[in-house]
């Protein structure tokens, strides 16, 4: 992977331009000048233009991930905004939202400013999500308005659920004034108990404590109803159970302001992946049953699931080399996201690339209030170039994160990101 400054004039030649906003797909050339889109169609490029041959490739909006953990500040040994940016570029992501469960957490205007200032030097667009409560303790609301002024795009205590329903209600009400969504890691901690994997036949056989599906779906239901009560927007992160999908679908039908995301790993694996206690499969919420996984895939085709988010969660080798019980929850996912989901959708569902790409581009941008019309002349070139049918094997060399805890290492994929254009730079893989 090589990242360099874009030439003054860049011609993307002979590619298929796929616009997930307008729902169109056609062969066009694109001229980019000074990092901005100059013209699209059959424009005549000046002789001085550098040509990037896109024959057989798809050019689309740069991917946007509303759920990553870049560990800064506090655990820079796992990831930083800079190293996380490289992982994002490798995965075709031009824009990410970082979760606030850092050390210290992003629970003040000052800490939000720390991220936005550092992000200014990064090769992708990074937006902080602010904590809902001070110290992520689930009690007192943070200074949300001041945090929005410093660049917070949403609020979440991710990693920790907001257990107290009254606090959740107030958070939703308050954030609605600022027109920002609340993202709540839905998991009833009492019901989850010591659960570290999905409760089912596999947890019984492995002797590991189970985490029942209800621990998630109960709180998803609660959050949807609270959002309805307060007329606020709630976003459900990493939906993992079929019951949660059912609740979200019903709420959407009733007009509640609810959106939901699903991760590549919940679409790709089920709890049988844990058979040899491989800690790279330890994640929260846990990998669920095959029936759950199938329902999540179906949720994409039915429109119940709005976006794909990686929940990119880097951990050190040392931490992941522990026993399953002691290893931390989480896996990285930016580099493998497009290929993993593309592979599943190609194998199992007849989803058009256009519909799928919307879940990585338009939908997450809408959710966060970012510009969604990226093929407009004059806008910053924030583009991803990919080969949807290329087959390849994901290995450790495919990883650009500072951590290596990917469950996809060794997997054969269909579809590959070839280049990522953003912030005046071009990254070619």
């Amino acid at each position, binding site marked *: 992977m090589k990242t360099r400054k874009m030439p003054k004039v860049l011609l993307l030649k002979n590619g298929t331009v796929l616009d997930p906003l307008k729902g169109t797909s056609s062969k066009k050339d694109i001229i980019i000048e000074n990092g901005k889109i100059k013209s699209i169609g059959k424009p005549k490029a000046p002789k001085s233009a550098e040509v990037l041959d896109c024959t057989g490739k798809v050019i689309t909006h740069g991917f946007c991930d509303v759920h990553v953990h870049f560990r800064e500040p506090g655990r820079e040994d796992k990831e930083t905004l800079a190293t996380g940016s490289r992982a994002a570029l490798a995965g075709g992501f031009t824009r990410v939202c970082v979760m606030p469960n850092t050390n210290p957490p992003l629970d003040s205007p000052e800490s939000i400013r720390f991220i936005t200032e550092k992000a200014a030097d990064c090769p992708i667009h990074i937006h902080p999500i602010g904590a809902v409560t001070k110290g992520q303790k689930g009690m007192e609301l943070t200074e949300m308005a001041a945090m929005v002024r410093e660049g917070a795009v949403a609020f979440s205590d991710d990693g920790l659920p907001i257990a107290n329903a009254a606090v959740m209600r107030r958070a939703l009400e308050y954030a609605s004034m600022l027109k920002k969504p609340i993202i709540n890691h839905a998991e009833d901690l009492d019901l989850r108990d010591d659960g570290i994997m999905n*409760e*089912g*036949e596999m947890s*019984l*056989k*492995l*002797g*590991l404590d*189970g985490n029942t599906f209800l621990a998630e779906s109960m709180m998803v239901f609660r959050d949807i109803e609270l959002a309805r009560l307060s007329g606020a927007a709630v976003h459900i992160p990493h939906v993992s159970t079929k019951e949660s999908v059912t609740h979200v679908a019903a709420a959407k039908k009733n007009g509640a302001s609810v959106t939901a995301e699903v991760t590549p790993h919940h679409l790709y694996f089920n709890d049988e992946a844990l058979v*040899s*206690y491989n800690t790279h499969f330890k994640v929260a919420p846990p990998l669920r049953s095959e029936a759950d996984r199938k329902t999540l895939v179906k949720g994409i085709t039915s429109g119940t699931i709005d976006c794909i988010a990686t929940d990119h969660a880097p951990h050190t080798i*040392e931490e992941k*080399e*522990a*026993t*399953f*019980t*002691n290893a931390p929850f989480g896996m990285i996912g930016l580099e493998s996201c497009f290929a993993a989901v593309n592979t599943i959708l190609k194998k199992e569902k007849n989803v058009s690339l256009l519909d799928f790409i919307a879940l990585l581009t338009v939908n997450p941008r809408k959710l966060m209030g970012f510009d969604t019309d990226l093929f407009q002349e004059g806008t910053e070139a924030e583009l991803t170039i990919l080969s949807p049918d290329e087959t390849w094997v994901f290995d450790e060399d495919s990883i650009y994160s500072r951590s290596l805890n990917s469950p996809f290492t060794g997997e054969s994929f269909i579809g590959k990101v070839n280049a990522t254009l953003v912030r005046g730079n071009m990254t070619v893989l």
Partner: protein
Amino acid sequence: MLKQKHLLGLEGYPAQDIKTIIDTAFSFREVLDRPIKKVPSLQGKTIVNLFFENSTRTRISFELAQKRLSADTVNFSASTSSLKKGESFKDTAQNIEAMKIDAVVMRHPDPGAPLHLTKHVDAVVINAGDGKHEHPTQAILDMMSLQEVFGKIKGLNVALVGDISHSRVALSNIYGLTALGANVTVCGPPTLIPPHIETLGVKVSHDLDAVFEWADALNILRIQMERMGVGLFPSVREYRNLFGVNTERLDRHGKELIIMHPGPMNRGIEIDSAVADSKQAIILDQVLNGVASRMAILYLLLGGKAEE
């Protein structure tokens, strides 16, 4: 002689190999009845007993089995907390490997830890209990004890009574007994029976008296007092009334049930003293068979010379 290099659990373990172990154990049992209870089978072999969790009888049983086979043994005990503070699991494993050990007998609080160990060492790994996952040597000695009494395992009705959820003994017994053709019922309050257990081919009952009618043998599992604090059962009195095995209950059925217990027992709670000390209890035979079974397992896995 056995198909698998290690003994990590009885899930999917070949029935023929379980039988081989039990048959071999009976021949070692004869050794234990001799005045000189030692054979040279594993002379020159080094075995480390790696106990990350407190254990008295399992560790002593293994150590005795190793000494009876003339192996050299080293004991390593560490409370989990001190391990957590210091050396990583991987380092401990690599240290063992560096010391050229032939076999590791490991007890660990985390399920899957013995499998984890096999990835770092070349030595034979024997699981002496990993969390609530498996305790294969206990199940083998239990089956050996049943065979001693009944002459067979196939067709026997065996009930596991008590805390099934937190018991590694239960899971290994279920795998072993069903593999050898026994019928298994688990009995206890629903809060101590794990969901989906029936998928393993066992019946579930909450009625001890009905189980008495059905069973040929009861394997009574220890109830841990700390489970009471988190509401898994309300009180000792209530537990004893519903699931305690006592003479009065046994007499009501007038049936010679065989009583087993892997120990340590809570006398007066899950089992009354009168029952534990009665002649239908084979609890102390289990202890002796434990040494014989572990001798057989070590002998078969470490490829010792056949004993004349």
